[in-house]
């Protein structure tokens, strides 16, 4: 088995070899600019782009004309939220989102607040879910947009998108969903789910980095956006700039494979994930699942190993590539904003690890991960004064801890 092993599929995924194969000709012999109308090079590129557009649209139940290519989800999010805000500012200046969104959404909303928009940041349930009741309670006559994650990138919790979409349509409010983590893992259908704007990214679904798209509904209602990048008027004027043809082709192929293998991929990852969790819970005490066991992505497992700090655990499983909700790597010393908003204590947030399972994860790799995680947690607990206190029956919540700001503990 090749080491290290990748268990961070929420961060990015390897390119599927079938995707790479589809992309290669468009770097060399079929290098044309899809906007060139005067010769065969351009026509060929345009044809490839339109095939890709069709495949992407098919995966999410959209029409090809509703797909706007971008550089990825961050750009799509900026275009969707700022584009709607600018276009509909006269109708209203209120946006509803949640505290557990990706930073691209949160920071875009913060930017709009500086421009005079008002934003409601909904606090999710302890499992990380935003309910339709929460959204309904936040809507105002001047609300123009609801922007919510389809699936959370840290804990994998799924929002009730269809119910929220239905509510938004009944109330005449536009609904944008960041579906970066959801597309390709669970069924997504913009018609049935009543979504007006949706973003997805190539590199999360075994496609290339640097390419993604924004779905923009064309009827019932027709969504209009103010472009955020001006230029040659590509992508129906919504996103200027020469298309990244090999990237677009790769995104299209990746979507085609996701559509073809969705059920198979989901069954494969959830079986490995469930087995992984079952074995860890059996081997270790004080392990907590962060998120919603019922409404969760099939490939995500976010666990807190009490009394063990996340970064030290990552160091202890050096050949298992994962990420942590601990913020020990950042200067702010603040753990994950997602776990915080869910009400997970900072102590458990510092102990959290996100495991991701993918199309290419094997049983053998999971065996390795289980063995090494168990070993490392046990070793670090031997080192942990907190675990020792708990074994002695001390209630950690009753202790008046010192701060570790420089000098504060000197007394």
């Amino acid at each position, binding site marked *: 088995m090749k080491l290290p092993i990748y268990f961070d599929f929420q961060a990015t995924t390897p390119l599927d070899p079938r995707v790479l194969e589809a992309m290669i000709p468009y770097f060399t012999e079929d290098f044309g600019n899809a906007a060139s109308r005067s010769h065969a090079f351009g026509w060929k590129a345009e044809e490839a782009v339109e095939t890709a557009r069709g495949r992407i649209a098919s995966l999410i139940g959209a029409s090809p004309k509703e797909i706007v290519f971008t550089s990825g989800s961050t750009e799509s999010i900026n275009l969707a939220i700022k584009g709607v805000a600018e276009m509909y500012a006269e109708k209203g200046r209120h946006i509803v989102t949640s505290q557990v969104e990706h930073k691209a959404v949160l920071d875009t909303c913060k930017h709009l607040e500086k421009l005079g928009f008002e934003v409601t940041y909904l606090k999710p349930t302890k499992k990380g879910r935003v309910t339709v009741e929460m959204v309904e309670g936040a809507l105002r006559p001047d609300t123009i947009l609801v922007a919510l994650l389809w699936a959370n990138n840290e804990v994998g919790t799924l929002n009730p998108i269809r119910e929220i979409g239905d509510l938004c349509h009944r109330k005449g409010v536009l609904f944008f969903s960041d579906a970066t983590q959801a597309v390709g893992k669970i069924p997504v259908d913009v018609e049935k789910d009543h979504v007006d704007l949706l973003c997805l990214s190539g590199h999360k679904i075994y496609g290339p980095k640097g390419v993604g798209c924004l779905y923009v509904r064309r009827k019932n209602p027709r969504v209009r956006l103010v472009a955020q990048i001006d230029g040659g008027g590509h992508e129906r004027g919504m996103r200027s700039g020469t298309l990244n043809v090999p990237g677009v082709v790769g995104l299209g192929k990746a979507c085609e494979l996701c559509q073809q293998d969705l059920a198979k991929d989901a069954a494969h990852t959830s079986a490995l994930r469930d087995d992984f969790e079952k074995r860890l819970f059996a081997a270790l005490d004080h392990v907590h699942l962060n998120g919603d066991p019922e409404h969760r992505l099939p490939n995500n497992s976010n666990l807190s190993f009490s009394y063990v700090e996340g970064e030290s655990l990552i160091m*202890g499983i050096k050949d298992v590539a994962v990420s942590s909700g601990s913020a020990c790597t950042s200067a702010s010393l603040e753990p994950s904003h997602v776990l915080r908003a869910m009400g997970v204590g900072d102590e458990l947030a510092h102990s959290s690890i996100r495991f991701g399972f993918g199309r290419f994860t094997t049983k053998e790799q999971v065996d390795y991960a289980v063995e090494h995680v168990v070993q490392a947690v046990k070793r670090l607990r031997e080192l942990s*004064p907190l675990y020792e206190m708990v074994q002695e029956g001390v209630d*950690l919540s009753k202790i008046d801890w010192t701060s570790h700001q420089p000098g504060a503990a000197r007394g």
Partner: protein
Amino acid sequence: MAYSDKVIDHYNNPRNVGSFDKSKLDVGTGVVGAPECGDVMKLQIQVDGDRIVDAKFKTFGCGSAIASSSLATEWIKGKTLDEAMKIRNTQIVEELSLPPVKIHCSVLAEDAIKSAIQDYKSKKAGGSSNPPARGGTQ
């Protein structure tokens, strides 16, 4: 993030892990940090006269926090209390090549040494019936 070889060595082979009976008169215990900040260090010294004859630690924290406290126990063993009081976090930073975001780990280790010595001294003076093994002032 890349760790220095010394941090990795202390992480893989931590020195002086363990606990002394904190109720003993010749033992000083310092517990600093807080779980919600992601670091808690417990450092204990065993003192003979004014000399630290043995030291032990347990740490909840990142690799740099574990390495800083492991190194601290190594350094204070054999030192007098006054000598140990003079250890500065900057020396730990230098020895372990800690990056700026990890300086707080070294500060915590310095604080843990001082807190353990203080605990020992107040026990000796008969001032404390409640050793601060629960993390400082109640």
